[in-house]
C-alpha cells in the first residue's frame, strides 16, 4: 500500500516538474533564451592582481599598505569611510603612536562639547573609527547623485575577486567602446554616471577618482594610476581582514601538529589491527 501511494506521489511530482520543463522548453524553442544584453556582452572579469598577501604564505607588504593608506587618505576618504577600522589599528602598518595621533587629528568626528553638552565636531583620537565624511546616509546620497558611497572596510571581502575588483575598477574607466555602440545602439551612459567595463552594469556612479599619474605624492617618485590603484587595493585587503597574517601564521603549526597526530593515529591503527586479518572485500 505504501508503495502504491509512493509511486503515485512520485509520478505526481515528476510529471508536475516535467510539465514545467515542457512549457519552458517550448518557450525557449519559440522565443530563444532571451536577448543578449550590453551588460552581459561587455562586462569583463577583473584583471589579475598579485599582492604579497596572496596565497597560503602571503603576508603584508607594510610599505605598500602605507602607500595605499596615503591614497585612501588623500583620495578615497573624500567620499568613503572605514567604519570598522580604528586609527589605533594603523599600528599594524608600523606607524608610531605619535604618528597615529597626528593622523587621527586630521579627521573630524561627531562629539559632545564637554562644557555645553552640544553636539560638535571634534578632532579624532586613536580610539575613534575612521569616519565617513557624511553625517548620515541622506547627506551621502544628496551629495552623490543619490548613489551612497559604500563604506570600504570590507569591500574586498564583499565582492568576488575583491582586491582585483577594486584595482580593476580604478583603472577600468574609458569611453564607451565603438563595438558596443555598433552592437547596442540603445546603450548609453546617463549624465552623472561613468562607463567602466569591470562594473556589472557598466555604468558606475563613482567619478574616476584617480585621473593623473602623480596625483598622490609618494616619497621619491610620482606613481602611475595603476601603481596607486594597486596600493589602495592592497590597503583595502588589509582593512577587510587585519588578522589575515596572524591567521596564516597560526595555520601552519596547526596543520603541522595535526599531520603529526594523524600519522601517529594511522600507525596506532595499523598496529592494533595487525593481529587481525584485514578485510579484503567490502
Amino acid at each position, binding site marked *: 500500500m505504501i508503495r502504491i501511494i509512493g509511486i503515485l506521489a512520485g509520478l505526481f511530482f515528476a510529471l508536475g516538474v516535467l510539465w514545467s520543463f515542457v512549457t519552458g522548453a517550448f518557450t525557449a524553442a519559440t522565443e530563444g533564451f532571451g536577448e543578449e544584453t550590453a551588460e552581459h556582452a561587455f562586462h569583463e572579469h577583473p584583471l589579475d592582481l598579485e599582492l604579497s598577501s596572496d596565497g597560503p604564505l602571503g603576508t603584508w607588504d607594510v610599505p605598500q599598505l602605507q602607500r595605499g593608506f596615503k591614497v585612501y587618505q588623500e583620495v578615497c576618504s573624500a567620499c568613503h569611510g572605514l567604519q570598522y577600522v580604528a586609527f589605533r589599528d594603523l599600528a599594524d602598518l608600523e606607524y608610531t603612536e605619535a604618528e597615529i595621533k597626528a593622523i587621527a587629528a586630521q579627521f573630524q568626528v561627531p562629539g559632545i562639547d564637554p562644557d555645553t553638552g552640544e553636539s560638535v565636531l571634534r578632532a579624532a583620537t586613536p580610539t575613534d573609527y575612521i569616519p565617513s565624511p557624511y553625517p548620515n546616509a541622506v547627506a551621502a546620497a544628496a551629495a552623490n547623485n543619490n548613489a551612497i558611497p559604500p563604506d570600504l*572596510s570590507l569591500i574586498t571581502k564583499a565582492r568576488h575577486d575583491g582586491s582585483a575588483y577594486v584595482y580593476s575598477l580604478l583603472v577600468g574607466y574609458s569611453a564607451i567602446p565603438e563595438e558596443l555602440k555598433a552592437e547596442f545602439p540603445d546603450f548609453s551612459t546617463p549624465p552623472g554616471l561613468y562607463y567602466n567595463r569591470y562594473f556589472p552594469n557598466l555604468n558606475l556612479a563613482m567619478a574616476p577618482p584617480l585621473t593623473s599619474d602623480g596625483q598622490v605624492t609618494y616619497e621619491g617618485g610620482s606613481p602611475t594610476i595603476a601603481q596607486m590603484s594597486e596600493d589602495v587595493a592592497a590597503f583595502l585587503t588589509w582593512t577587510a581582514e587585519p588578522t589575515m597574517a596572524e591567521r596564516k601564521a597560526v595555520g601552519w603549526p596547526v596543520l603541522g601538529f595535526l599531520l603529526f597526530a594523524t600519522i601517529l593515529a594511522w600507525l596506532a591503527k595499523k598496529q592494533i589491527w595487525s593481529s587481525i586479518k584485514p578485510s579484503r572485500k567490502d
Partner: protein
Amino acid sequence: MSFPWAQAYEPKTGLTKFLDERLPLPRFVYNAVGAGYPVPRNLNYMWNFGVLAGFALMLQIVTGIVLAMHYAPNALVAFATTEHIMRDVNWGWMMRYAHANGASFFFVVIYLHIFRGLFYSSYKAPREMIWLLGVVIFLLMMATAFMGYVLPWGQMSFWGAKVITGLFGAIPLVGEPLQIWLLGGFAPDNAALNRFFSLHFLMPFVIAGVVILHIWALHIPGSSNPTGVEIKGESDTVPFHPYYTAKDGFGLGIFLLVLMTFVFFLPNFLGHPDNYIEANPLSTPAHIVPEWYFWPFYAILRAFTQDIFFIPAKLLGVLAMFASILVWFFLPWLDKSPVRSGHYRPLFRKFFWFGLIPTMLVLFYCGGAPAEEPFVMLSQIATAYYFLHFLVILPIISSIEKPQPLPYSITEAVLGSDKKPVLGENASPAV
C-alpha cells in the same frame, strides 16, 4: 548490547567499584563505545562518519557558545558585533571561521553518512528507527544552519531569511498570517533576528538529544556492515575499543586536517561575498542563493515554474522541496529487497551510480547557479528523476532484481571461509 560474547565490564579500582554500584557511568561508556560493544570486523572507512558527525556537533556547540559571548542579536549591531569578533576579540576570527566552516563540514560529513546509508541500505529492518531518527537529525540541522546563517545580518542573511520564510506564504489560506507570525513582522527584522538567535542556540541541544536516541537505537541491532549480512558469531566481530576507536582516531585526524585547511587558508571559500555587506531591505542582491549545502533542495524548489490546475507553481515547489526529504522517511518500506548492500544488487547499483549520484550533482550545481536557462531546465529533469528514483524505480527494482549470491557470513567475506578460528589468542590487540 545483546551479543552474548560481548566483553563484560569489570570495575577494577576502588573509585570505579564505588561508582559502579551508585552511578554506573563507566560501565555505560564501556558498553556503548568501549570494548563491550562488538562491531562487525569488516567496516570500511564509510563507517567513520557517524563518529565524525558527533565530533562536528560538539565543535559547533563549543565554538558557538564562545561566539554567543561576544555577539549581540540586535539588527542595529549584529553585523558590527560580528566584525568586532573578527577584529577585536582575541582569537575571535578563529572561532568564527571554525564555526562557519565547521557547519559546512558538518554537512559534508552528514551527506557522506547518508550516502553510506543509501548505498548499503542501512535503513532496512531491523534498523528503521535509526534511519528515521537520522532523518529527523538532518531536518533539525537544516533548520539550525539556516537560522545561524541569518545571525551575521549580512545581505544574504537577510534575503535568504526573506525567501525561506516566504515559502510559508505559499501555504493556502493561512500562509500569509503564518509567515508574519513566524517572523514577528512583515519582513525579517529585529524580532526575527532575536528569535532565530534564541532557537539557533537551543536547537543543537535538541539535536544532541536526538543523537542520543539515534545511538541508543543503533545499539539494539548493532552496526550494519558492507556485506549487509547480519552478525552470526563471535568471529564476525571485534570490540569497538580499541579497533574502531583507533580507526576513528585516524579518520578524525584526516577530518581535522581538511577542516583546518579551510579555517586557516580558505575561510571564505564556501561563503558568499554579499554576506560581508550589511543587511539592507532596500537593496536586493542580483542572485539570492543559500549556503552550498542547501543547493540541491533549492534547485528542486525553483524547478516548478508552471501551475498545475489550481495549485500554484510556488506551492508545488515548496511541497516538492519538503517532499524531497520526507520521502527518505519511507525508504525502509519502499525498498523491499531482502539484500542490503549495493555490492550484491547489480540493478540497484546501476541506478545508484548512474542515476541518483549524477542527479544530486546536477541539482547541486543548478541550485547555486542563477535562475536562468539552461540551469532551470536541467534542474527540472533532475528533479523528475529524483522523485522517480526514490518513489518509482527503487520499489520496482527491489521486486524484479535478482541479487548476486551473498557470503554466508562476515567472516567468510573477509577470510574466504568461516571455518578457521580467527579470534584466538592473537585477537587481543598488539599494544
